[in-house]
Structures are given as structure tokens and as C-alpha cells.
């Protein structure tokens, strides 16, 4: 028999359907150009350290000591590590007998899970059970595990905001479920529109879809909006009435750049509501060390917390978690450190506090610089980045630009972003990667380039944009 290699046609249909633009076409083109020697500014992914943000000192000291415990025996260790880092390294090494190289429990080191529970309790004012907290290799793995557990077949629908971080759409495709979109209202600063959501649900149900869960991303990605307490109550009531599990992606909870709507966890609002709803609405909350002011994406540290999930269901989720044996131990330690950072009075506190504040203050300034910068460009309208790490300006493309794009076989926003990349080296993600209303185009960029580089970047963008708009302006307007 002649050998026939594996063809594209022979692959799992669900995999073929998956789209994940964040590391897709634009990113690959940017990488190619970088190889050719062009200077690229990667703003396609929320990857702070890659754009020059320095890691916080204290966690790195602790983890380095945990990586190489022989250091603790060296007489000179006190010269290069502060006493509290040394103490904390011993604390984690005691929790991880065998060190960082040993598998932990599949759900994560019990001591770290306890630290997560204590953090949640301090944050929300309600007790949290470490047994219902699972550590994962980044929040993405936890999201995938939960969706894998929920989706039975193509008739299971998951409510996902549009625009959304495409991990959700990709995972739903991969597991063979149906994505049921609910549109955020751009005119209302990307606010929640429950009327639209109910319409979506009704339409899906009339097509035979059973809606199983609702995803919220708070603060939002790519949109950055922070949900108000009233919004969260509405959402929780909705989930209660419609019998949906709420999947609350709260990975950007430390990234809030306005004071009107500070972060409140879905769990806190749920428990504040009291009564039967607080005991019955099923909630899974996700967090990570990749974002916030820590930005330790490369460590792959995350967790999910289950609320009101029945014990037998938790057991089944444990099964899924245990196939991968254990989440990486250094990532777990980063999570523990994030959950219980240096406190006032600790030797490392002043430095930690200064480093953290400096990063957060700068992010707040950069959010403003970018929003203002985009709003100063022709045909560009940008909502303020209330939170998270991105700016998601709307690009009002002239008809001629759209026609040119389509005749080149590209979506208009992809076309625009490729041109932007080639002209300026700024690598963004077209809005179509996140979902947007028909005929309305956006791009996503991060607010992460160094503050001192921002003015040059925004001016380079403006130069490109304004000349692009000039080039493609509608003749009828002349």
C-alpha cells in the first residue's frame, strides 16, 4: 500500500474551526518582518515583561531560593537576599517536600490553596474553602478544563460577550459546543445590555440550543470595562433565572484605572445578595499571576474557585485535573506569593509597594495616553480603558478601504492592521479576532509599551492612520 500522509482534510473538524487571532496571522507576519530586521512593537498580547516591565523583586528572590535550596545553607545568603525572602522560601519549601521538582497534588499544593482562600476571604469578606480551589498552569488551562466538563455536544451553548478574548470561542469550537453571543454596547462604554442578552438566549433556544453557562470577563478583554455592582447583580439574577453556570474571568482584577467602578468579585456580590440565590447560583471564578501588576505570564500560574458546585461534580472536575498530574510548582509558588504579598512592617514591603504602585500608576497613565492618542486620529473613536491591559479603538474605514481589502481577500480590519504593521512595526490584533458588530471594525492593542515610548508610538500610529484615511477617503466626500 502506498503511503498517504495525513492531510488537512483528515483532521478533527473541531480543530479546523478553531480561530485564535491573538497569535495568528498578524503575529506571524510581525515575526517574519522582525526576522527580516524590521523593528516590531508587539502589542498583540498582554505580555508586560516582554515590553520592558520589570518583574517584582520579592517574588523572584523567593522563587530563586526555592529553585536552589542549597543557597539557604550558604553563609553568604543573607548578603544577597533579605531575611523575609529567605523566610518565605523556607515556608514554601516546607509546603513542597521534595522541592520544586516533585509533583504536587493535582489540585495544587494544599498550603498555597489555603493562601488563595485567605486572600479571597480578605478581599470579599466571606470565607472560602481551599478544597474548592484548583491551581492550574495558567488560567487558560482552567477555562479549558471547565468548558470541557460542561459541553456535551453541539446543542450546548455558552453565552460569551462580544467582543471577547478568543480563548472562549476557540475552546467552545474545540469541544464541539455552540457559542451564543451577547453584544456589549460600545456607545455605553462597552456596557452590558441585558435586553440584547435575553434576545440572544431566546434566539438560540428556538434553534434547539440549551444554554449551559455565561462567561463574563471583568475587567473586560479586549474592552476594558469594569462591571458595576448593579451589573453583577443583574447578571447573577439572570443566571439564577435561566439556570446558567457563571464563568467569571477576573484575571484583570488588579488592573483598574478609574475610581467610579472599583473591582468587585462576582462571588462577593452573590453572597451579598443573600437568600436562596446565594446558595444556588453556580459560579466558577478564574485568576492568574500573568496580569495585574505582576505580569508573570511565563510562569503559567492560575487558579479557579468553584462556588455552589455539588461535590460529585467537583469530583469529576478533579478527574480532569488529575490527568495532567500536577500544575507546575514554581507557578504555584508565584500564586501563593501574589495571594500573600509582603505586608507593612516586612523588610521587603517598602520596595514591593513602590514597585507595585509605580507599575499601576504608569498603566493608568498609559491607558489615558492611548485613549487620547486614538481619539485624536481621523475616523478613530476609542472608549476609555477602564481596566485590563488593552485599548480597543473603533476604526471607521472608508468604503474604498473596505473594497480594496475585500478584493485582496482580507477582512477590512485585517487589511488595515497589516498595513499598519508594515508602515510602523506596530503589531496589533484586528477586531475580527474578538468579534464585533457586522460592519464595525476595531483593533486591539495593549497599553504595555514603555511609557517613554508611548508618545512616539501614538504619533507613528496617527501619521499612518491619517494618511491611510486620506488615501482611501471616499471620493464622494471631495
Amino acid at each position, binding site marked *: 500500500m502506498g503511503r498517504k500522509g495525513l492531510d488537512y482534510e483528515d483532521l478533527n473538524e473541531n480543530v479546523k474551526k478553531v480561530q485564535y487571532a491573538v497569535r495568528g496571522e498578524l503575529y506571524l507576519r510581525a515575526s517574519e518582518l522582525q526576522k527580516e530586521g524590521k523593528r516590531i512593537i508587539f502589542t498583540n498580547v498582554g505580555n508586560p515583561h*516582554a515590553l520592558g516591565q520589570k518583574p517584582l523583586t520579592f517574588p523572584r528572590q523567593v522563587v530563586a531560593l526555592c529553585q536552589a535550596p542549597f543557597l539557604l545553607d550558604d553563609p553568604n545568603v543573607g548578603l544577597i537576599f533579605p531575611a523575609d525572602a529567605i523566610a518565605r522560601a523556607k515556608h514554601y519549601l516546607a509546603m513542597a517536600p521534595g522541592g520544586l521538582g516533585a509533583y504536587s497534588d493535582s489540585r495544587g499544593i494544599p498550603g498555597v490553596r489555603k493562601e488563595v482562600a485567605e486572600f479571597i476571604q480578605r478581599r470579599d469578606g466571606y470565607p472560602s474553602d481551599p478544597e474548592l480551589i484548583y491551581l492550574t498552569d495558567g488560567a487558560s488551562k482552567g477555562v479549558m478544563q471547565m468548558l470541557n466538563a460542561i459541553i*456535551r455536544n453541539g446543542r450546548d451553548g455558552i453565552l460569551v460577550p462580544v467582543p471577547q478574548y478568543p480563548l472562549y470561542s476557540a475552546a467552545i469550537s474545540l469541544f464541539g459546543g455552540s457559542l451564543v453571543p451577547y453584544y456589549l454596547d460600545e456607545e455605553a462604554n462597552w456596557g452590558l445590555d441585558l435586553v440584547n442578552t435575553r434576545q440572544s438566549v431566546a434566539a438560540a433556544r428556538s434553534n434547539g440550543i440549551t444554554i449551559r453557562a455565561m462567561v463574563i470577563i471583568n475587567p473586560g478583554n479586549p474592552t476594558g470595562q469594569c462591571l458595576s455592582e448593579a451589573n453583577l447583580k443583574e447578571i447573577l439574577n439572570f443566571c439564577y433565572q435561566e439556570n446558567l453556570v457563571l464563568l467569571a474571568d477576573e484575571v484583570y482584577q488588579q488592573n483598574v484605572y478609574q475610581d467610579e467602578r472599583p473591582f468587585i468579585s462576582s462571588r462577593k456580590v452573590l453572597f451579598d445578595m443573600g437568600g436562596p440565590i446565594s446558595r444556588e447560583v453556580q459560579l466558577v471564578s478564574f485568576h492568574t499571576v500573568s496580569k495585574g501588576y505582576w505580569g508573570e505570564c511565563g510562569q503559567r500560574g492560575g487558579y479557579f474557585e468553584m462556588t455552589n458546585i455539588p461535590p460529585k461534580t467537583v469530583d469529576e472536575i478533579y478527574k480532569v485535573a488529575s490527568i495532567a498530574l500536577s500544575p507546575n510548582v514554581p507557578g504555584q509558588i508565584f500564586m501563593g506569593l501574589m495571594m500573600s504579598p509582603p505586608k507593612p512592617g516586612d523588610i521587603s514591603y517598602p520596595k514591593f509597594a513602590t514597585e507595585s504602585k509605580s507599575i499601576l500608576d504608569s498603566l493608568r497613565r498609559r491607558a489615558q495616553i492611548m485613549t487620547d492618542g486614538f481619539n485624536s486620529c481621523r475616523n478613530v473613536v476609542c472608549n476609555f480603558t477602564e481596566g485590563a491591559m488593552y485599548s480597543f479603538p473603533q476604526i471607521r474605514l472608508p468604503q474604498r478601504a473596505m473594497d480594496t481589502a475585500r478584493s485582496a481577500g482580507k477582512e477590512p480590519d485585517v487589511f488595515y492592521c497589516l498595513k499598519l504593521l508594515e508602515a510602523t512595526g506596530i503589531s496589533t490584533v484586528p477586531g475580527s479576532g474578538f468579534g464585533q458588530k457586522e460592519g464595525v471594525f476595531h483593533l486591539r492593542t495593549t497599553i504595555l509599551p514603555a511609557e517613554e515610548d508611548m508618545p512616539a508610538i501614538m504619533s507613528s500610529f496617527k501619521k499612518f492612520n491619517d494618511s491611510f484615511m486620506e488615501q482611501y477617503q471616499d471620493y464622494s466626500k471631495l
Partner: protein
Amino acid sequence: MSPAPASARALTVDSLNPKVLALADHFGGAIARRAQRMQEMLEKDPGSYPFNEIIYCNLSNPHSLGQQPNKFFHEVLALCDYPHLLHWSVTNSIFSSDAIARAREILDLIPGRATGGYSHCQGTEGLRNTIAVGIASRDGFPCYAEDIFLTDGAAPPVHMVMQLLIRGEKDGILCPVPSQFLYTSSMVLCGATLVPYYLDESGGWSVSISDLKKHLDAGRSEGITVRGLVVVNPGNPTGQVLVGENQCEIVEFCRSENLVLIADEVYQENVYTDEKKFNSFKKIARSMGYGEGDISLISFHSVSNGYYGECGRRGGYMEVTGFNSEVRKQVYKVASLSACSNISGQILMSLAMNPPMVGDESYTFYQEERGRIILLLSQCAEAMVQTFNSFEGMTCSKAEGAMFVFPSIRLTKKAIAAAEAMNTKPDVFYALRLLESTGIVVLPGSVFGQVPGTWHFRCTILQPEEKVQLFIYRFKAFHEAFMGEFHD
């Protein structure tokens, strides 16, 4: 609208993905949970059992049993995690000079020296280059960084491969019996049909091509499209190292039957016999003259085993060769959903593929560490094989490689009846009794699959030197008592 009653809440066991429900209980779950409870009781009340500790032989987790990590690797990892150390002169008196040099090299390979940033989703290119060079020098054939995907251990890439290849339940994968649950679980989760092939216990657990063909044909006659063949070499739980000729037969078989060869080679640095040598399937295929266009091959390795045993870091790679670019794009796409694997694990994988060389400051110490660990594993393996072979009703194949022994036990009718009366499989019954009498935790063969009517258990060879004799003493006492109790 009134809410649905609590019993009909969205996420109950009845409404979960049936594939998740179908997953077999993990790690011979009953035994692991029992051991955990016994440990808790012993901690509260040391006198509660006729032994004072639980001896975990169920999972290969070397550092948890006292195996020391490699100093050079840990020095480099610490320096990469906290590069400030490289600015201070006192560092030179604490860290070896080659670890310092290597850390600098590695940091230079990482864009922005940012070990906290996401890397390229296949892993940092420079580290993949290092690994590719290591693979090329291992095999004597070229290896390319673009074929390498760095992963969080060996489990995620196995899932990825299954997701790619399996379209539905009419797709199957040929999987060895016995086989570790990673493969069986992944298949259940993907909805694939597991097409078993039986390793030949009397032939040292070799792969019989006629058995492969028999099961492949049987699968096909039931309408299953068999997409790939999993081979684990060195074997888990069986510990055999395949001979070159057997590997050639397997390569030919995959070519002629149009199967993707999925080669799990995570134990490649655990070989305890001079009579056998590890050869990667890539090396074998290339030596046979088969190139990119001739065979589709996915090979896995990880940092969890070898002489480094760094399971907790989740470091690994898969090398993907023999696929066209359309298919490769899909592999990349699936990999990109998890962003990237953890950087520390990537660094460690590159160190494992490029350890200290002759002349480096750390070389002597490193060689000693490595030699000692492999020797200990080999001695423990030997002691266990001899011991189990001396027990009544037990035979144990030589542990040529990997981290386990997998003895077979001939259980008497009386023992089997006693197990059935307790609604337990006979080998689970044996393993539970062993646990309760001695504190020793092993995994019953039924977790891995075995020829029906045969019984086995898997036991790791990781006991520290000073504990081996105690282990043997306790096990022997238990086994003699058990065989006496259930004498037909």
C-alpha cells in the same frame, strides 16, 4: 420566571460532558485515597497501624522520595529567575562559573531577558535550537527548531495530538496494553476508540507485529479508522527497552498501514542494562532511509524522569516531523491556545538536552550525581526484580528501563472469590491488602490493562537505598501471609 429547582441546577453530575464521566477513576483512585486517609491517621496517632509510614510506590515522583536534584540545573534556574544575582561579585563564590555562564547565555536567548513573559507558543526559539542540537547529537540526524513544541510536561502534547487526529468515535488509536492512563484518559476525553495491542509478556514485553496487525484488522473490520500507533519506549509500566529490529518493524508497519507513529520516549535516559541501548524512533526511521516525506512521527520527551526527575516543573517537548504545512499550522494553532509552556520548564528541558560537558567546572560533580542516581535506580530495580521473582506465584520481567517493575501474580481461586465478594477486582484487592498490612502503595495492573485473567501491579523503583531492605522485608511478610490465607 421562577428559577429551576436546585436539583436541576446547571452543573450536576447528570449534565456533565459524558466523556468526562467516562474517565476512569484516576490513579487507581480508591487506593490513593485510602493511602491518603491512612497517612492522615498515622500523623494524628502514630500507633494506628503496624507500620509507621506510608511507602508510596504508586507514582514516579523522585524528588518526593529524597532524590536530590542536579545542582548545576538548579543553579542555572535560580540565576534565570533572579538575574540581579549576576550583578554581584559575591555570586561568584556561591555559584559555579559555568552555571553563571549558562544562565547568561540563556537569558540572552530570551527576548528582553524576560523570563516572566510569554514566549513564542512553540517555546523560546533559542531554547528550541539548543534542544534541536541536543536531539541531533543524540541521534546523528538533523533536527530543526521549528519541529519542536515545548510543553508543560508530556500530558498536554498527548491531548493535542489526540484532539488533532480524532474526529469522532469511529477514529481509533492503537494503544499498548498495558499502558498508562494518560493515553487511555486522553482517548476517552476525545471520544476516540482505543484499539488495544498486547505487549508480549513472555517475550520481555516486546511489540509483536502480528498482534498489531491482528488488532488493527479487527478494528478496521468494525468500521474504525485507525489513525495512529502509540509506542512507549522505554515502557511504562512494563520497563522494556525495545530492540532495534523491533523498532524497525514498527516503523515499517506504520508506513505500510498509514499510521502516525506516536513515540513516547520520556524514559530515554532511564536504561539499566548494558545489553540494550535507547534508540529514538526518529533515529531508527532516518537510519532506514525514511525522511520527512516518508513517515509521520511525533516524539515526546520530558524533564520528569531520567536522572533529573523534575516532574513538578512540567517541562517537555514534542518533535513533530513528517506532516505537511497545512497540518502543521493546525498543530501550531492548538498549541497557541495555551499561550506557551512555563519558561522555567523550557529552560530545564534545554539543560537536560545540553548538560555540562567534559572540561566544564560542574562536569565532574554532575557526572557523579547522574551516575549515582542511575546506579541507585538500577540497583533498586534489580533488588525488586529478584525479590518478586522469589515470591510464590509471582514473576517479574527485568526492568531494563523506565521507573517501574510490573510483576505478574497468579492469584488463587480463593483470592479471586474473596475479591469478588467485596466487589473489587482481584489485583485491586491484593493492592489494598498490601497497603493495609504494610503501608506500601502500588498500582494494580487493571489501571493499565492486562491480558484478561492475568493480574499485575506496578511498583516504582525509587526507594531510597536505606529503605529498600525494609520494603522487601515487609512485602515478603505480607505476600507469604496472603498466599497462606488464600491457599486453594
